[in-house]
């Protein structure tokens, strides 16, 4: 059979409508020869809205740029505003911000582990990790009043304090999570099916990770030792002792190893934060109008470096707010990762950069020269990918049967 080049747009698609896709794939047989990225389908116009609202309103808006990294965006933004205003945020507030930040990282990485499991057909991993995630969600709800979108920050500090009664509860939860994470480390290092499925997939060499501007666990899995908490410390990170987790595998497996390693570091950091929590106020008085100035703030969100640039003009509304979320930096490396790989590996490769969930929840149109286009949904592509690997000996059915699906917390 002669080789055929198929062009496959992967993204929101309907044969009757011209619409933006996420990724455009050119196939040769089962292998991807090239791909392009088409973004912007969920462009909302947030930066413009920021100029028309006050700083506090903007913080609530920016919390909702992404439902996983909401504290990341809120904190990154408020840091820039506080810098322009020349405010000295009380240490206790910085510690509390850091505590919420690490709890956010934990829930995000556990979420990712579950999603990765789901993409390869290892559904019990999804059930396990999202069950554990509920421990964190309950903690966050206790500390902040909400499971997601915590509204914890204000200009000059935080809005809620940690009480003495909450501390042992946090420590107990961290102990539980640490035990369970050790189990995931075991899976990652000992389960052959898991290792085989994720190895040599989505490869990005060290030099390419740097050249393409990858950030976060995606870059660190290629051995790039880059973490804003360590390189450009903010909040309380300058006073914490922790390791930057890197890995040399350069593939999806490495990205899993890095995230699981980061979970363990987060538990350590939370214990340090609680043990050394400074006394004092949780906020300092902030002006409503911010004097003219500019600041560039960086933050290590669970997915990588998040940056906010803010310019103030002396009023109660910013002159300019610019946001570059980590996924935008990583998605441009995806084309490189997909090249020369199999279509069947596409779901896990894209999932491995930990993009916004909705990025991976799209319809796919398969264009074959000889047939009329048919629509495949992402779940169907995932199913095809699972079956493709199953026919080559990589099968999670056994593991799914072995694990008891836990009921309740």
């Amino acid at each position, binding site marked *: 059979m002669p080789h055929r080049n198929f062009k496959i747009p992967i993204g*929101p698609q*309907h044969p*009757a*409508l011209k*619409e*933006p896709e996420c990724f455009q794939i050119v196939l040769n047989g089962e292998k991807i020869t090239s791909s392009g990225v088409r973004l912007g*389908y*969920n*462009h*909302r*116009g*947030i930066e*413009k*809205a920021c100029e*028309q*609202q006050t700083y506090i309103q903007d913080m*609530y*808006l920016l919390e*909702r*740029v*992404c*439902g*996983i990294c*909401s504290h990341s965006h809120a904190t990154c933004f408020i840091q820039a505003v506080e810098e322009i205003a020349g405010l000295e945020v009380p240490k206790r507030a910085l510690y509390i911000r850091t505590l919420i930040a690490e709890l956010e990282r934990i829930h995000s990485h556990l*979420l990712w582990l579950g999603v990765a499991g789901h993409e390869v057909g290892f559904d019990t991993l*999804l*059930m396990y990790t*999202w*069950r554990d*995630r*509920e421990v964190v*969600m309950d903690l966050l709800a206790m500390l902040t009043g*909400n*499971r*997601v*979108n915590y509204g914890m920050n204000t200009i000059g500090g935080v809005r809620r304090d940690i009480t003495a009664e909450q501390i042992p509860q946090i420590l107990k939860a961290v102990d539980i999570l640490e035990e369970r994470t050790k189990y995931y480390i075991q899976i990652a290092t000992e389960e052959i099916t898991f290792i085989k499925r994720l190895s040599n997939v989505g490869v990005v060499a060290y030099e390419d990770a740097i050249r393409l501007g990858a950030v976060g666990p995606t870059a660190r899995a290629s051995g790039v030792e880059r973490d804003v908490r360590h390189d450009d410390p903010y909040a309380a990170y300058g006073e914490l002792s922790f390791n930057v987790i890197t890995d040399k595998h350069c593939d999806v497996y490495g990205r899993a190893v890095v995230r699981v390693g980061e979970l363990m570091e987060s538990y350590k950091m939370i214990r340090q934060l609680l043990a050394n929590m400074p006394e004092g106020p949780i906020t300092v008085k902030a002006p409503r109008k911010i004097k003219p100035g500019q600041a560039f703030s960086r933050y290590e969100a669970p997915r990588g470096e998040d940056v906010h640039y803010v310019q103030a003009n002396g009023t109660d509304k910013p002159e300019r707010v610019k946001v570059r979320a980590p996924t935008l930096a990583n998605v441009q490396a995806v084309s490189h990762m997909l090249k020369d790989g199999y279509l069947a590996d596409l779901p896990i490769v894209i999932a491995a950069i930990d993009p*916004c*969930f*909705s990025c991976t*929840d799209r319809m796919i149109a398969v264009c074959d020269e000889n047939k009329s286009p048919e*629509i495949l*949904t*992402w*779940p*169907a592509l995932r199913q095809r990918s699972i079956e493709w690997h199953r026919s080559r000996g990589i099968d999670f059915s056994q593991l799914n049967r072995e694990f008891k*699906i*836990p*009921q*309740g*917390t």
Partner: protein
Amino acid sequence: MALLKKIVTWARIKSPWIIHFNTGACNACDIEIIASLTPTFDIERFGILLKGTPRHADVLVCSGPVTRQIKDRLIRIYEQMPEPKFVVAVGTCACSGGVFKSCYNVKGGINEVIPVSVFIPGCPASPKAIIDGVVKLLASLEETPVAAKG
């Protein structure tokens, strides 16, 4: 708990098929929807099945505000669903546009575009609220005669 038992029995017979669609907002609601499927909340005990195509779905579970570019796709998906069909708007954005109402690329809530049966507010809507809303929808279906699924 008698009503709940009635609903559970009814749902097991009816087994509504759901399609989930995110119009591209922050994903917090989508994650809470998926969380409802996990063992802690376990919405599947109501017999709800998550399907991949609108052509087989009874209920469209929709999150996110409607943006300019997603509007036509949303209408298309709704049109592909067979009657009788219902729409659940999950989250404040789906109900009214939420914090994004002031953004230039956002039109508003889901009901600007398609009729909504159930509004579940929250930012995000918690799994408990989602289950509550879905159960209320099922209970209302029991009151209205529904054509048997072929």
